[in-house]
């Protein structure tokens, strides 16, 4: 079988197809799991509360976002201050 395959042009083994499919789907699923941890809404609420002590802002002015870049997790917090207080 191996001998014939050699001359007919090697077909990719099913095991390597399995590996590629798994790597693709798991990368996708892991992203879905880790992109928004459970604590993000709570974090946003508390940030609003703290900043509101000093500046008056709307809850929508704070954007909290988690992103995965390779092995690094980046927590991005964007705060828009109202113009001319």
């Amino acid at each position: 079988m191996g001998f014939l395959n050699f001359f007919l042009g090697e077909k990719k083994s099913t095991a390597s197809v399995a590996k590629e499919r798994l790597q693709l789907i798991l990368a996708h699923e892991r992203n879905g799991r880790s992109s928004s941890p459970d604590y993000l809404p709570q974090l946003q609420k508390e940030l609003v509360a703290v900043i509101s002590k000093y500046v008056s802002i709307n809850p929508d002015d704070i954007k909290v976002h988690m992103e995965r870049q390779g092995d690094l997790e980046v927590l991005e917090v964007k705060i828009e201050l109202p113009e001319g207080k």
Partner: protein
Amino acid sequence: MTTKIVVVTSGKGGVGKTTTSASFATGLAMRGFKTCVIDFDVGLRNLDLIMGVERRVVYDLINVVNDEIKLTQALIKDKQIDKLYILAASQTRDKDALKQEGVERVLGELKEMEFDFIICDSPAGIETGALMAMHYADEALVVTNPEVSSVRDSDRILGMLSSKTKRAIEGGEPVKEHLLITRYNPNRVEGGQMLSLDDIHEILRTPLIGVIPESDSVLQASNQGLPAIHMQGSDVAEAYKDVVARFLGEDKPMRFTEAVKPGWFKRVFGAK
């Protein structure tokens, strides 16, 4: 020594969780550690059958969790190995009977009885039963077959171990994860028909604690109600003993992972 709680989990069913729980617990007790193995598969118990104690089950985990009896009344002592105890799951009640406070109390009582290891045999799936089994774990054996659906489910379970367990929620040291590959067939791996252990290890990125080869002796063992680690001279028993040794910190090279070519006699006259 403080009590260590180990969950045997996988997500997918039929990959060898109960076989592993039985052999792993037996192996630890054979090494002299006081060990209790608990079946968390409420409604579909099977650990009792695999351990060969099915006719000695009078009370079960739910009876203890509900405080109907004392823990010592439900613990079944193994007939062959000293220091090995089994706590069966309930056959009749549904999974929601398993309450977290009750489970915590039972584990606490086992700790007071100075058990060295508590092995939690998780049910398949990602529902209450599986979550209860992993919740208080210090370490986890994630049982995986070299097959796409099992690897995917294991990845899911690894995600839950690092987010849904007590250690994860309280922000302590994470649950120590070990990957255990079962039903491995090196000949099929060499033929390119089966994911290799390197492939699985690369995909799941979890330290490998052992490889259990695919073998007839697992069925032979369960037929007789004997943990597979008792099958003298079999590859499976040896592989499980290696897993126990590595778990206890010993350095053992992997065995039964290389393809074996049949000898000329077998090739001429055929196998078996």
